[in-house]
């Protein structure tokens, strides 16, 4: 009788953890009570032991984030066949695998980064499906196609025009090379639409001088600075994938924006900067959705996502900071406009092929120092790239 190796529940609303290391290779013989793998959650390393002796078959590779109770592997008796996975798994059991791959159920937008989600161990994969590779999950096929069509045709310096209530005519440039935290582009959001903000390296000399003058004036007087950082979103995508399975019973579909929203909230709290209600704007190709979540620091990831999905619980105008998501628009970078008396505005751009996306922050430099802002962005990156902490 096969016994499973499961992700333990370490208590306190733990939703999942990281499969940090398998101590034995797939197919190895294990003794009862022998540690087979280590899972980590926050600052805890838990060593999972084999309940019985037998043959270890690994189902979830090291590096994957899994929910509590997930079967990470099984221990078989000699000669015993590998049991089918539970129906809740996203992997297709071999007996039910269709000859022709079916169109999978749509997953949240975060699954755009699906290549970063670890799959089964290669040898196990080959055994289950000798010829058919793992089905590629294409979320919202039409939208995926639309995004893909624009994502790679734009070149640095191209102007992008899109209409959302939040940007209200602010047109930003596509830029691929962004400065690391600590660099700043003074005054960018203060430019008038008909002035220098459209200037590019190809602009006439007169326009460039005008651009420079306005830029100098802005940097001398402006209290709004912008700062950008590149974030690898592949781990956050795994988090979203885990939460999606965990939250099914609550009817909440998490998005990558929820992870980003939570990370920003935690970072703001941690740096002791002015927090308050957070606003979120999800810009789509033809429309945008905006709402605000109040008392956000005291909400868990799921509570914040539930509130976001329900349209927020606070008037948007009362948000003290706002996250604008361009995740699905195929825009490599954009500077958000800081208005409405807010302390900061963040724009999450679309990820590139490497899974990295630019997060740009406009902030009121009279309230936050440049060092604080840099630390804030650095903390957001840490949280999104090691998102286990956000599960608690």
């Amino acid at each position, binding site marked *: 009788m096969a016994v499973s190796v499961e992700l333990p529940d370490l208590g306190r609303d733990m939703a999942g953890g990281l499969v*940090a290391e398998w101590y034995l290779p797939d197919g190895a013989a294990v003794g009862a009570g022998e540690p087979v793998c280590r899972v980590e959650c926050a*600052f805890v*390393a838990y060593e999972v032991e084999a309940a019985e002796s037998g043959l270890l078959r690994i189902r979830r590779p090291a590096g994957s984030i899994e929910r509590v109770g997930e079967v990470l592997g099984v221990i078989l008796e000699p000669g015993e066949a590998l049991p089918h996975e539970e129906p809740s798994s996203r992997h297709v059991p071999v007996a039910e695998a269709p000859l022709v791959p079916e169109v999978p159920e749509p997953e949240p937008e975060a699954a755009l980064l699906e290549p970063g989600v670890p799959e089964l161990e290669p040898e196990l994969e080959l055994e289950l499906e000798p010829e058919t590779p793992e089905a590629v999950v294409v979320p919202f096929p039409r939208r995926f196609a639309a995004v893909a069509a624009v994502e790679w045709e734009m070149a640095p310096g191209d102007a992008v025009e899109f209409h959302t209530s939040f940007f209200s005519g602010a047109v930003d440039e596509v830029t691929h090379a962004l400065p690391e935290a600590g660099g700043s582009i003074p005054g960018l959001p203060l430019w008038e639409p008909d002035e220098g903000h459209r200037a590019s390296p190809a602009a006439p000399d007169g326009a460039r001088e005008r651009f420079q003058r306005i830029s100098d004036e802005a940097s001398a007087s402006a209290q709004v600075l912008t700062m950008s950082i590149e974030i690898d979103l592949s781990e956050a995508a795994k988090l979203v994938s885990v939460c999606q399975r965990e939250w099914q019973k609550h009817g909440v579909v998490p998005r990558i924006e929820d992870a980003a929203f939570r990370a920003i909230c935690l970072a703001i709290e941690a740096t002791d900067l002015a927090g308050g209600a957070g606003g979120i704007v999800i810009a789509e190709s033809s429309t945008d959705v905006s709402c605000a979540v109040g008392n956000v620091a005291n909400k868990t990831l799921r509570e914040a996502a539930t509130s976001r999905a329900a349209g927020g619980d606070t008037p948007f105008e009362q948000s003290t900071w706002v996250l604008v998501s361009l995740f699905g628009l195929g825009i490599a970078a954009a500077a958000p406009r800081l208005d409405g008396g807010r302390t900061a505005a963040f724009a999450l751009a679309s990820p590139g092929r490497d899974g990295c996306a630019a997060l740009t922050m406009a902030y009121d430099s009279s309230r936050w120092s440049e060092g604080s802002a840099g630390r804030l962005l650095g903390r957001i990156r840490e949280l999104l790239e090691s998102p286990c902490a956000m599960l608690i």
Partner: protein
Amino acid sequence: MEGHSRAVGVYDLGTTSYSEVHKLQQRLQGQRREGGGVDTLLLTEHRPVFTLGRSHPTPDLRVEPEAVRQWGIEIVQAERGGDITYHGPGQLVAYGIIDLRSWGLGVLDYVRGLEETVIGVLADWGVRGERNEAGRGVWVGERKIASVGLNVRRWITMHGAALNIDPDMSHWELINPCGMRDIEMTSMATEVGKQVAFQEVLEAFTFHFGRVFECTMEPASVPGHDVSSSRG
């Protein structure tokens, strides 16, 4: 409520090397796993050492490894979670070998209890310690004063918490503690503004551990081990 049916043997080990206490922890955890031994709290201060978490085998240093060697600081791999941290004289390290299942406690509840214990100690010196979403451990404002890190097997813990009483803070400058850049460490002496007696903090930690986890703390001595002569 379990009440005081929980009992913990408390050992003050004085100044120790990381590796000797590590071996002791492994032995105690192994005994406890097999159903023997007792729940134990080991209190010590280590000679200077950087320890690495299991998933971060490469030290996250702010300086060249050669500079660390010049300081005479050892770098060792630990089997706890988390990233690099520092232990050294002037820092109280508390290792609990606790059977959480017999206490009816989840691992993360235990971590929270360790943080609560440190917060209680700090309050005795008029310092307001808090949890911080930036990471586990205990913070004073934006500065981190205590770290936690655990290894758990069959619901028996090892490792625990480290509270900065008055360590050589320049050693912290050599690393990115917990892998976090821009993190600022602090100590009780810094926050209080005067010297803080190590032994008094050790006693306060023992008291608050018993209070938080509702257990009887039973001081025990290590045969042939004179703490007063070993504490540096």
